[in-house]
């Protein structure tokens, strides 16, 4: 009997250990997912209005990370700087500056590479986007070199222990910044005149023109906002993933998967899809004993599953309803 209860105790301890381990994975997944969400928003907003996948969007996050890093290093002296109030302030300054830069870059790309093709074959803007993607990543390699750079933490990144779960200040920053961005975006599209015009244009472009809405301006604004959010995603990802010219490729692709899972064209869908994908990836890989180097498999397996079971995504609408 004694040995029996000892066995039971051991079993319970193991089980509790497993639960906390998975809670830890969920926390990690949440932060990864928040980054996917920020980037997925750009894909989904552009798709909502233009029914077009901006394949250069992933590279915008790379540009955002580089610009953020350069400004941060210029302000603080980079690695040599001691983390403190000034480095944290400098970090947010460089994030805002990078958002501004990427917003302008996004609008310029739309003007030069997509707008002239708006009435062309559907394939043309897609190919143009792939071209832009290569130009951005090769351009970055040319200017900055191909070696990866570290984005120094602007704060002491000492892990904080809450019970058995560990969370780093970096993870907290990711979650707080992402939540702030998503709340701002949500209130922008639901409360402001331009935000509502953006929704109207994605529902029915020619009717919104009848309301006096300048659809070209709405499209520019959409690219600006999407690109600024990608810059934030790129900078937040940079601490863990480092900064290098092809950093946007896989993260961008997975954010696109997140947008599809959530229902492409739907803003809330992109937020949910990103978080969900992050968690599934962080939990699914250890659960299915997928080696770390192959954990990207999870995202794409989920994508295929969603496409098979609910092709319009979680919050997406069946296209047939659109008539």
């Amino acid at each position, binding site marked *: 009997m004694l040995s029996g209860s000892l066995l039971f105790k051991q079993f319970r301890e193991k089980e509790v250990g497993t639960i906390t381990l998975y809670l830890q994975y969920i926390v990690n997944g949440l932060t990864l997912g928040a980054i996917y969400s920020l980037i997925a928003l750009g894909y989904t907003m552009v798709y909502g209005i233009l029914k077009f996948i901006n394949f250069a969007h992933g590279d915008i996050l790379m540009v955002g990370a580089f610009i953020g890093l350069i400004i941060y290093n210029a302000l603080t002296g980079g690695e040599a700087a001691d983390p403190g109030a000034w480095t944290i302030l400098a970090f947010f300054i460089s994030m805002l500056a990078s958002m501004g830069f990427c917003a302008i870059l996004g609008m310029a790309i739309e003007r030069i590479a997509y707008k002239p093709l708006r009435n062309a074959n559907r394939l043309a803007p897609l190919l143009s986007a792939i071209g832009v993607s290569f130009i951005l990543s090769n351009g970055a390699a040319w200017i900055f070199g191909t070696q990866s750079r570290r984005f120094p933490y602007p704060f002491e990144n000492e892990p904080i222990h809450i019970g058995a779960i560990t969370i780093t200040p970096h993870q907290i920053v990711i979650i707080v910044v992402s939540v702030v961005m998503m709340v701002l975006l949500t209130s922008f599209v639901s409360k402001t*005149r331009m935000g*509502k*015009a953006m*929704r*109207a244009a994605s*529902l*029915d472009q*020619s*009717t*919104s*023109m*009848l*309301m*006096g*809405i*300048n*659809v070209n301006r709405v499209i520019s604004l959409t690219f600006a906002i999407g690109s600024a959010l990608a810059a934030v995603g790129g900078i937040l990802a940079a601490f863990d993933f480092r900064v290098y010219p092809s950093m946007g490729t896989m993260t961008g692709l997975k954010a696109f998967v997140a947008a599809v899972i959530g229902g492409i064209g739907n803003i809330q869908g992109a937020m949910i899809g990103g978080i969900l994908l992050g968690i599934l990836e962080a939990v699914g890989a250890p659960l299915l004993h997928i080696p770390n180097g192959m954990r990207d498999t999870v995202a794409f397996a989920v994508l295929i599953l969603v496409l098979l079971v609910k092709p319009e995504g979680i919050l997406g609408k069946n296209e047939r309803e659109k008539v």
Partner: protein
Amino acid sequence: MSEILKIDGISVSYGNIRALSDVSMSVNEGDIVSLIGANGAGKSTLLKAIVGLEPLKEGSIAFAGETICKAKHHGGLTTDLIARRGIALVPEGRRVFADMTVEENLDMGAFMVSDQALIAKRKNDMFELFPILGKRKKQKTRSLSGGEQQMMAIARALMSGPRLLLLDEPGLGLAPLVVQNIFSTIKLINEENKVTVFLVEQNARLALKSSSFGYVLENGRIVLQDKGEALLQNERVQKAYLGA
């Protein structure tokens, strides 16, 4: 009375198919003018041409004495700029923003208005004109019935305070009683708000009864034009459109 809309010899083609050939017509300020014709006669095309959604192959369109649409590239204004001049179109099939609430749809109608007090006043006017919209203002527009959506579309167009209201088949697919109701509202809007109305309709009797002047469009050409009552008495109109 002054001429508010002047269409001068316009032609519109879809590829090799001529949708409108050499159409000329005019609408006087303060009037209700209707254009009747069968399905596929080119009625909707004409309205779309006026707001710049269909490019002209020939001819021109002037609003309040200024050219807004012209044949050839960069001849006319873009649709949003034409709307800003004071033309509102209630499109065929209503085209409400289904995923937005009734109130948000009205906000979109008032996109060009910057005076918040004026927007609030117009919203109240609309809720008085169409009480059902006031009751449903927080509902998604997709939950409205066809008749309610038509009222929504008209209210949305009026939010901008247009000088000229274009209506594309406001009675299409609605119950006769609802259609009557909508037409009497259109008359009310015309009389009280001094909005000039140009409407396109398959229901010729109702349209001509409400109009001071009418045009008949067949195969993309204007074949008849006269006072509303005169057209109602016209033998050709009676045979083709009134089932007499």
